[in-house]
Every structure is written in C-alpha cells, then in structure tokens.
C-alpha cells in the first residue's frame, strides 16, 4: 500500500504489521501525553517531588538523553572534522538518535518547569554568569542544527526525491553539512560541559561541588568527555537493537568497529579522569567542607539500597572500566556478545553518572541535624519519562521504513528479483 514511499532495493514488513507495532507504542505515547497534560494543567503537584527533592526523575532523564545523544555530535566530529569517511554509513542514524534525544530533552524541560509559559525568560532575562543560561542557548541552537541535519534525510524519501527542486536542494545541503557538523560540535562541547558545570558549581552541596579550573568546575570537562565517549555506545546499541528487530544486518562490522574503538579510547581516558576526580573529591574537596567519603554513602538514617557505595562502584567499574577494557581491545570488541555488553555498560555508566550528580545531592542532608530524603517518582513522572522513549521508537520506525537511513542496507541485504 505504501510501497511507493519505501526506498528502492530494500524490503520492509507489510503496512498492517508496521501499523500494529507502531500502534502499540502509540498507546504508551498517549499515556505519556495524558500525564504531560495533567502536569501542565494541574501543576507539578502531580509529581512526588518536594522542597527537598526539587530535582528528580525528569532532570535525570534530561541529562541522560543529552549525554547519550552525544553520539550525534561526536560522530559528526569524527566524520566531518577528522575525516573518518567510513562513518558515513552510520552518521544518519546517529543524527536521527541525536534529534530524538534533544527534542526529548526540550520536551522534558517544558514539563519540568513550574511555569512553562515563562520558559522564554531564560533568554529574555539571562543570568550571564550561570552555565544553565549557556545550556539553554546552546541546546536550542544545537537542536536547530540537528533539525537541519535531519531535514536532508527526510527529503531523501523516494517520492520527495523525485521532485527536482528537492533533489537538488538535498544535494546542496549535504554539500554544506560539514559546516553544520562543526557548529554542532562547538555547541555540544559547551552545553554538555555547562550541564556538568551546573552540578559542579553547587558549593552549598558538597556531594556535587567540584574544584574549578578558572570558572569551570571539573564536571564541565567530565560531562563533555563522557558524552563524547559514551554517546557512540548508545548509537551502536540502538543499531544492534534495530538489527535484531528487523532481522537484518544494517551496518558493516568494520564501521561499528571503528566507532567502538574510538569510543573505547575515549571511555578509557574519561574513566581515568573520573577516578582522579573522585579521589580528589573524596580526599580533599569533601573533607575541606567537613565530610568524609562515607558520610555520603552510609548513614544510620539512609537506605543503603538507594544511597550505598555500590552506586559509585557500579558507575566506575561496570559503567566505565569494563566497557573501556572491552572496547579498546580488538580481540574483545570483535566478539559480538562482549561488544554488546560493552555498549550497554557504557550507556548505563553515563546515565548512572547523571543520576548520581542529580539525585544524590538532593538526598543527602547538608545541615547536620537534617535528615536523608527518599523520593519515588509518581506514575505521572514515569509516564512522561517513558513518553520520549515511545516517541523515539515511533520516529525511528517511520524513518527506517521510509528513509534511506542505512546506506549499506541494500548491499548487505540484496533482494532476489
């Protein structure tokens, strides 16, 4: 029924099967939309946040999708700036994932603020001394860049491409894409870093605060680094998931191998920096504020399940050292199971890092007579956090079905005439 829209030379499932699958995810999407409307119409009392836990699931989700969406800017950097041409075979998908992640981040932010209609105040009355302002500007600009990068993909749809103007327009856009990729790298480096900065500058919260280099706290550099390191893991992970769902090989192994190797080098250097940062924070920064490391993790009043040292170990060992070791070794990353393990760990590691920097500073009391806080999200918070996931699945489904996302798909899956 929709065969005229499907790229030439590739096979897709029947339209009813496709619509059935999309419909199931669509139900989840509608559930999220309902929760989103509740939050907008009734206010943030629909959540389980409170005055002690003012940052919660949404902010974590926001930071996490921005981090794992970092695969887009870093892949763009590798392809367009460093000239690793092989990555052209996965760059479209990386851009699509980045577009989904960043649009989701903006949507989550729009739900998270108490007065969404005033969100533009951040641009109108900016506090130029604070990094969140820079995040707002860079995030918006980078989303525009990702949109510009995604548009040529949409215009490459078989039917649209038949129109000469669109065909030529798309061709010319591809020609200048390096400029946008470079702009995206510049913007991403700043907003990823500034997102780290907003935790690191909280000098009233010893768990989050980090020492500075000039105006930038250590977290500024660690966030950019980790997004560049672990973003590609998420790109590879989603490629593998899509290959599993479609039952087809979509990207050649050598392309994945190049991205995995670079990701491995990045994670290795990142995790060394992260360990140094943790040691300095535990032995110098925190004690200068009157805290021993274990004050942050164990207390007679805190629940070790939520605030135990295991979180730090999980982040650094399983989410950092394990993927680093696997991905830098040619032999290990050639094993598909180990590769999958590594990219899952890498993605989990960076998401957990954002969780730690957002949630744990809220849980821990700073005044000696204050108590630990426990927070469990409401169903509205879960629904609105799952909403972008459902939206992402649907957008990937449509993009994969109707757009030539994977240039190697035809060659890897020849159709018998």
């Amino acid at each position, binding site marked *: 029924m929709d065969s005229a829209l499907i790229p030439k030379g590739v096979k897709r499932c029947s339209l009813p099967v496709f619509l059935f699958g999309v419909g199931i995810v669509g139900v989840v999407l509608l559930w999220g939309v309902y929760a989103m409307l509740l939050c907008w119409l009734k*206010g*943030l*009392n629909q959540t389980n*946040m*409170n*005055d*002690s*836990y*003012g*940052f919660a699931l949404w902010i974590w989700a926001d930071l996490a999708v921005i981090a794992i969406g970092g695969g887009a800017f870093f892949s763009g950097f590798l392809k367009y700036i460093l000239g690793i041409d092989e990555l052209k075979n996965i760059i479209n998908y990386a851009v699509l994932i980045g577009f989904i992640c960043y649009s989701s981040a903006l949507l989550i932010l729009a739900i*998270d*603020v*108490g*007065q*969404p209609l*005033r*969100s533009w*105040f*951040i641009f*109108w*009355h*900016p*506090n130029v*001394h*604070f990094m*969140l*302002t820079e995040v*707002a500007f860079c995030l918006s600009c980078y989303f525009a860049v990702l949109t510009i990068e995604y548009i040529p993909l949409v215009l490459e749809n078989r039917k649209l491409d038949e129109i000469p103007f669109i065909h030529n327009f798309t061709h010319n856009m591809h020609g200048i894409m390096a400029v946008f990729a470079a702009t995206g790298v510049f913007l991403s480096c700043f907003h990823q870093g500034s997102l780290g900065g*907003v935790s690191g*500058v*909280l*000098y*009233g*919260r*010893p768990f989050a605060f980090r020492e500075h280099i000039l105006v930038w706290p250590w977290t500024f550099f660690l966030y950019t680094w980790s997004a560049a390191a672990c973003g590609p893991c998420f790109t590879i992970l989603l490629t593998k998931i899509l290959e599993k769902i479609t039952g087809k090989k979509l990207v050649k192994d050598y392309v994945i191998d190049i991205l995995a190797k670079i990701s491995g080098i990045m994670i290795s250097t990142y995790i060394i920096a992260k360990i140094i940062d943790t040691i300095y924070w535990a032995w110098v920064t925190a*004690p*200068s*504020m*009157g*805290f*021993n490391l274990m*004050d942050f993790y164990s207390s007679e009043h805190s629940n070790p399940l939520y605030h135990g040292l295991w979180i730090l170990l999980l982040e650094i060992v399983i989410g950092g050292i394990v993927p680093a070791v696997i991905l830098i070794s040619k032999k290990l990353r050639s094993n598909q199971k180990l590769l999958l393990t590594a990219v899952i760990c890498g993605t989990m590691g960076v998401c957990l890092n954002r969780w730690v920097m957002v949630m744990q*500073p*809220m849980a821990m009391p*700073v*005044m*000696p*007579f*204050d108590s630990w*806080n426990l927070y469990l999200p409401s169903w509205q918070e879960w629904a609105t956090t799952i909403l972008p996931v459902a939206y992402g699945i649907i957008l990937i489904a449509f993009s994969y079905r109707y757009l030539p996302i994977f240039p190697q798909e035809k060659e890897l899956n020849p159709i018998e005439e």
Partner: protein
Amino acid sequence: MKQEHNQDKKYKKYGMVIDLDKCTGCGSCMVACMAENNVPFKEDESNKLDSITWMRVYKLTNKKPFPDTEICYLPRPCMHCEGRHSGHSPCVSVCPATATDYDMETGIVSQIYTRCFGCRYCMAACPYHARYFNWWDPVWPEGMQKSLSPNVSPRMRGVVEKCSFCYHRYQLAKDKAYFQGRKELREEDYQTSCTQACPAGAITFGDLNNPHHKVHQMVLPDLAHHGKPKKKNAFRLLERLGTNPKVYYLSSKKWVRDMGDNYTIEEKHKGVKEELHH
C-alpha cells in the same frame, strides 16, 4: 562629585542574631511570618516536605540518653548569604533568569515571583532548605482573603518563594523616613515580623555593618574574614561551605554550636571545631 557620593554611600548588611538559649520553640516566629507574608498553607499540613515555612523551627538534640538528654530549638529563616565574593549566594548565582538577586545596598536576597519560571535550581543550590516551591495555587479559607497583607503579593503556582527579611517593611520604613525628612533609617524603623513576634526576645535584627546596632555588638562580625563572628558563643550554620550567611546564632552550649557545621572524623577526634569557626 561621583567619588564623593561613593564615599558617602555606606552599604548596609541587614542580618539576624538568634539566641538559642532564649528560644523556647513556641513557633510564634513561624506564625507571624506566615501571617505577615501571606504564606499559603494546605488543608493537610502533615507532610512538611511540600509545605511552605519561610521560617522553620528545627528541634536539635544532643542524642544522649536520659537523664543527660538536652534539646534546643533552632529557628531557620533564609540566611541571605553573601558568598565569598559580593552577591555570590548559592541560589543567586544559579538562577538562570535572574529571578533572585542580591541587593548590594541592603544585603538582602530578593525573589521576583513574576520572573521565576520554576526551574527550582535555587532550591537545589540552597543547603539550608530555605527555599520553597508553590506546588499548588494558594487557596485561602472563606473570608481569609480580607486579612491578607496588602503589602506582600501572594505567589502563584509553579514559582519559588522564601523569606525576604520582610523587605516590604524596609520599603515602608524608607518611605516613612523620607516623609519625615530623614536619610537614614533608625534601628527600630525596620524590624522583621518574626523579631517582633518572639515572646522571649530571642531574635534580634539590624545592620551588621553598623557598630551601633545590637546585632553587630552581639556577634562582632569580622568583615576581613567574610563576617565570621568574633564572639565566642556565636556561630553561623554551615560556615565552612563559604556561603557567608547573615543569620547568626548564639548558644552557651558547645554541643549546639557543634551542630552548626559538619566535621570529619579526624577533626572530631582532634577537637578542632571551635578553631574552625573563630
């Protein structure tokens, strides 16, 4: 001319000294604050994690078993922190929309309700939990609207609010002084509602920069060291973080003073607590 003007200009630093030996924990300061500032309340106030108390009284205990048990009540308004350099309060420095500001003339940290868009970053930054979010629209019991203060605007759902050191009283006092032909406010011209409501006289308010004001005399703030108190029994909450708060506490009990800050195990063993504060 401009230089002369600057020399004449003497910035004030309004602050508070709370004598914990006098505080009985009666809560009058909390009630007075809520009435004065149109602070909204819920029908069910049992969950304190989402109720608004600009002034909150904490109950401290020395954690010793009977008969050595001692308790102390600690009223906690907004600390109106100055930070290590002027106006670098934990909350002001992180507001992305400049909805909260540090007034260099008074040292008061303001909150612009109509500009706040509810990102709650200031709440995350404040180690004192002195900032509160309006999770609901304010709803007043039938007829109570008539008793609201006309000098303080009620806040809408979705914005952050906090103690303002009754800034509207400062504005009224300035107006009154102007009409009376005075340039300077007298100490008694501007007092917060909690100060006046405390039946034990535990709260004292005034200009910390003015040696004639009681607050200055009670704690002797060391201006060369970010306002650290020189008086032995005086302390500030979380002094070590460098927030430079303008609320000081007095207590003759060492365990109470020790509760004002965090100390590592090594410091506790060495007993360097008092040294760190003075």
